[in-house]
């Protein structure tokens, strides 16, 4: 068995004597050869730089790894330069003002990031750790420094920084896009609101002695609904009114709604017979939308004429929900108008007609399907339950007798209570004849 102490002695004789107190390696040669490792070889070819300096900074010993990194020869450094001489100007300053004093006080430094100057003028990012070796009486003998190449770590950090900057940029761009979308959405909503407003009459012109009230619930802020209504004067002693619903939603439906409204008003001037008015509208729509994307509407059209007490309403109905009549005696019933065809799909339609007398204390309600099709919690947990005709009649009966404005107000409250269940546009139009105020002769 032989010992590989020769190398150890070489290391000791080369200056520092870091094997002090170490009795030497007692590893069998075969194993040592196999491992190809010993203290001296490890010192010189370690994966990090080793440097020993005297307390005044003079370099006492340096390993091959560090010399290789610096591109310098051992004799250029040992006994000639100080550790600080290997640093960049900034590093040197930092070393003198911070590191050296800290080392003197604490006796060690851990993982300080510095840059070394290489022989070819380059910079090598490194992480430096140092410990002070003390002699008898606590006098510092040597400073032992380990230096790690931080290039890969440096580029990793640079990469990290780049990714972080890109993420921040992406986030800023997303934020900007979101803000832009928000602006676009707000603008769209303004356009929709404006358009919706133009499709509804600014005022309702009811005959004297009749009260009218209307309400329009917009289901979507982004899409124009297709519901419409109006009350307007015709010739002397005659008024027209209508309420209906164009199929579909959005800009296409809005164009149809506009056409329907103006056609109804013009047709009523031309021939105020309610059926003639709907026939005219049917011709216009059927002519305009006769292709593979048919457009139609459901509508109630009426002519109001004054009667000896109250008003007579002549109605024509095309595919629309039955109007609801609330009598002065507190009853509420549908006016049956079944059999009328939706307007615009067939060239020769049939419309339902009826005449209603509206006496003082009576009220007539026209509405679109959003009201009766509102989703409600069904009895016995029935899924997809709708409010329905019967519930509407029963509810309005509790309001009767009433006036147009009270009726609309009461139903607006109902619409609010539907909450999310109200997912379609809903139009309400009520006409009523007020009860004459009771005479108080006393």
């Amino acid at each position: 068995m032989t010992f590989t102490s020769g190398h150890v002695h070489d290391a000791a004789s080369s200056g520092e004597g870091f094997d002090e107190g170490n009795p030497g390696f007692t590893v069998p040669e075969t194993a040592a050869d196999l491992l190809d490792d010993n203290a001296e070889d490890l010192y010189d070819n370690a994966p990090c730089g080793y440097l020993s300096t005297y307390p005044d900074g003079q370099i006492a010993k340096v390993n091959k790894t560090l010399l290789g990194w610096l591109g310098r020869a051992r004799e250029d450094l040992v006994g000639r330069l100080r550790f600080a001489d290997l640093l960049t100007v900034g590093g040197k300053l930092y070393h003198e003002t911070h590191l050296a004093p800290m080392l003197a006080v604490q006796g060690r430094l851990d993982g300080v990031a510095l840059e070394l100057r290489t022989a070819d003028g380059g910079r090598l990012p490194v992480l430096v750790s140092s410990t002070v070796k003390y002699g008898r009486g606590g006098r510092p003998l040597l400073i032992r420094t380990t230096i790690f190449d931080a290039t890969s770590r440096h580029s990793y950090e640079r990469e990290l920084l780049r990714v972080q900057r890109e993420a921040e940029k992406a986030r800023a761009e997303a934020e900007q896009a979101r803000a832009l979308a928000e602006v676009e959405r707000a603008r769209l909503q303004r356009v929709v609101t404006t358009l919706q407003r133009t499709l509804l009459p600014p005022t309702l012109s009811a005959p004297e002695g009749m009260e009218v009230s209307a309400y329009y619930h917009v289901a979507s802020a982004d899409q124009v609904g297709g519901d419409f209504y109006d009350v307007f004067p015709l010739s002397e002693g005659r008024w027209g009114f209508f309420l209906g619903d164009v199929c579909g939603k959005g800009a296409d439906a809005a164009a149809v709604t506009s056409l329907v409204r103006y056609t109804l008003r013009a047709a009523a001037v031309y021939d105020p017979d309610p059926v003639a008015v709907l026939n005219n509208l049917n011709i216009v729509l059927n002519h305009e939308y006769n292709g593979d994307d048919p457009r139609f509407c459901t509508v109630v059209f009426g002519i109001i004429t004054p009667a000896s007490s109250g008003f007579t309403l002549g109605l024509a109905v095309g595919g629309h929900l039955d109007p609801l009549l609330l009598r002065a005696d507190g009853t509420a019933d549908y006016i049956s108008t079944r059999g009328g065809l939706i307007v615009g799909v067939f060239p020769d339609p049939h419309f339902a007609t009826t005449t209603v007398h509206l006496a003082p204390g009576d009220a007539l309600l026209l509405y679109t399907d959003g009201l009766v099709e509102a989703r409600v919690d069904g009895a016995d947990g029935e899924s997809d339950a709708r409010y329905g005709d019967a519930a509407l009649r029963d509810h309005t009966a509790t309001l009767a007798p009433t006036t147009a404005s009270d009726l609309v107000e009461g139903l607006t409250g109902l619409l609010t209570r539907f909450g999310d269940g109200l997912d379609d546009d809903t139009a309400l139009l009520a006409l009523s004849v007020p009860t004459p105020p009771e005479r108080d002769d006393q």
Partner: protein
Amino acid sequence: MTRTLTITATEVPSGTVLALAGDLHLHTAGQLRDILKKTDLDAGQQLIIDMKALDFCDSSGIAALVAAYRHAQKSRATLALTAPSARLARLLALSGLDRFLALYPTTAEAQAAWTPPSP
């Protein structure tokens, strides 16, 4: 509610069956109109729209059914609607379309009611 629409087209001796499943509304009615464009009918044939699995139909859906009626008429074919739900049947009655569109409880009954054109 499903909100989507699936259309299955099947050739039968009387013509074509378009089986609708799901919801026929504003955003899906275009699917039916597109299929109609690709559905060629001969004179005297029958176009059946089977609504057995249709959960929902709004006014845009009704408009698409009118488009189907027009499409059949153009080819001098007939349109039959089968198995509408109670709500849809009510909607068709309200619109007055039930007097123009032939309604049958099942596709079998619709096909049985079909008479081949005389040669």
